[in-house]
């Protein structure tokens, strides 16, 4: 339509009782809402922590001895606790990221999605605020796992800064899975399908990677799959920070120092994946929230 805008015709309503929100203000409003929901619903916080915690405790107790042998054969010379914590940190990032799509489906199901769309808030601010709240939650959860790992005997070789680095890796890693989970949510518009879809992927992703054992200790086909598995890159980056050494199992850079040689390429791969999956999710959410009829 090419009708003149209200500003042009001067017919606009000026008596509407509203002060304008800034873009950041709109992000903040949504950030607060999703944080409040996360605190209100400890189910979300706890459930995505329970399975990783069980893994952390059981794996170190049951496989600690056997895995320790494999580790010493590969020359790493670290305790299995220290070796495993980065993997569990990534697992928690996956589990927490999977709830992002569930939140979106909930909003679609209970009408809040439409309610937000009919409000004057910028749509990108709405989803930025939601994602920011989820990233904060993931950072907290990865932090909890790190703390628990230290209690169980793991050591962070790079100290407090390295620990913050592991949290950052967890956050960067989670973004592609948040994108995946939200795409699944828009596609299925169904809570159960979104949960099942993300959970089905979680275990193959974890086991077909460098998460639980060095790649050299695994069969050839798993090694091949692991090279193309995002979890390998997340775990390698976090593990290099934990061990204060180059723990890259696929490729390392050179000239940045042992830790950065492993962390930088891995982060590069993860950021590329974030852009890809984030882009897909943004396009799908944009389509779902568009007023264009389909």
């Amino acid at each position: 339509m090419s009708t003149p805008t209200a500003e042009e015709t001067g017919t606009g309503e000026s008596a509407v009782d509203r002060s304008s929100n800034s873009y950041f203000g709109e992000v903040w409003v949504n950030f607060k809402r999703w944080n409040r929901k996360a605190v209100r619903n400890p189910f979300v916080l706890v459930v995505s922590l329970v399975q990783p915690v069980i893994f952390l405790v059981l794996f170190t107790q049951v496989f600690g001895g056997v895995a320790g042998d494999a580790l010493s054969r590969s020359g790493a010379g670290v305790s299995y606790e220290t070796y495993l914590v980065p993997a569990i940190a990534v697992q928690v990032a996956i589990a927490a990221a999977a709830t992002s799509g569930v939140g979106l489906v909930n909003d679609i199901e209970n009408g809040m999605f439409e309610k937000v769309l009919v409000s004057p808030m910028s749509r990108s601010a709405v989803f930025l605020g939601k994602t920011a709240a989820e990233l904060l939650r993931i950072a907290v959860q990865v932090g909890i796992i790190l703390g628990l790992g230290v209690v169980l005997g793991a050591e962070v070789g790079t100290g407090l800064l390295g620990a913050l680095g592991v949290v950052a890796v967890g956050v960067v890693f989670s973004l592609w899975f948040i994108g995946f989970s939200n795409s699944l949510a828009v596609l299925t518009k169904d809570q159960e399908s979104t949960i099942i879809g993300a959970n089905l992927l979680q275990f193959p992703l974890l086991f077909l990677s460098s998460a639980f054992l060095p790649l050299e200790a695994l069969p050839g086909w798993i090694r091949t799959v692991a090279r193309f598995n995002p979890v390998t890159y997340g775990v390698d980056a976090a593990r290099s920070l934990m061990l204060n050494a180059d723990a890259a199992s696929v490729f390392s850079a050179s000239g940045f120092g042992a830790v950065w040689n492993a962390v930088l390429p891995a982060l590069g791969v993860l950021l590329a994946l974030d852009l890809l999956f984030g882009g897909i999710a943004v396009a799908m959410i944009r389509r779902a929230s568009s007023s264009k009829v389909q």
Partner: protein
Amino acid sequence: MTEYAIDADGIELTYSDGTKAVRGIDLQVPRGEFYAFLGPNGAGKTTTIKTLATLLAPTGGEIRVNGFDAVSGSRRVRESIGYMAQETSVDEELTARENIRFACESYGVPRGERAERIDELLDLVDLADVADKRAGGFSGGMKKRLDAATALVHRPPLVFLDEPTTGLDPKARNRLWDYFRTINDAGTTIFLTTQYLEEADQLCERIGVILDGEIVASGAPAELKQRVGGEILDVDLADGDSQQAAEIARRAGLFEPGATVEVTDSGLTVTSQRARERGTDLLVELRDAGIPVTGFNVRAPTLDDVFLAITGEHVETGPSAGEATEELEVGR
């Protein structure tokens, strides 16, 4: 300020599969009016209201809402309207107060006015005593009231209500009607869709009857009722006698030539200018013919009769507001 809250010309909405949900609707709703779209399920009510509220872009026609173009000025339209969807939309993990506060923040209600506005709205919809309880524990009626409150935070001059009372019990429905009357009395234009004839009749100044994406009739409730052509005589009969009774009723001389006689599930319905005057004559003739009458009633036409007269189809009527059904109140 423009004269019309809604000024639309030839709204069309065709889905990509070719389904024409809205076929050329013209609509002028003056400021302050209480207007209703009345129609059965699937008539295009929700599609039209979503188009007016900028949730769907029309595939044809022009829409101005509060003076703004609904497509090019969608953000200005959104700032100036309240919208209540057909499905109750509240965040069940937040309290009533938090739901309203989120709406205040979404619409940029000035910080200093929020607390007062929230209390005022909680009072309006009678939720002040459960303000700090989570909405998840509310009854359907309470959630609807909360939903209505969140649509009013920015004091919009125009409010869209999409089947606001569908699925509510009569008590909850009457309460909502009171709130809608209150905000309309305060000058707010209301555009409501409903499949309950009684609702449109009770609340609205003007009604558009919509069927298959087109307005098939419009006017004040009284004007529409005049179209029916008289009063309605309902006669309840025992099974199997209806056809014979209809023949008796249609017999020349009993009712005027324009009168209609319809066989219904429970007996007969006669629409006639002389329904009241000649009704007893019909009952006597039926008795003489050996047809037992189990009940009868002469009444003014309802909008269902209007709809039948216009379209030849019945529409669903809502549960009677007189039935006292207890609304489930929150216990948590």
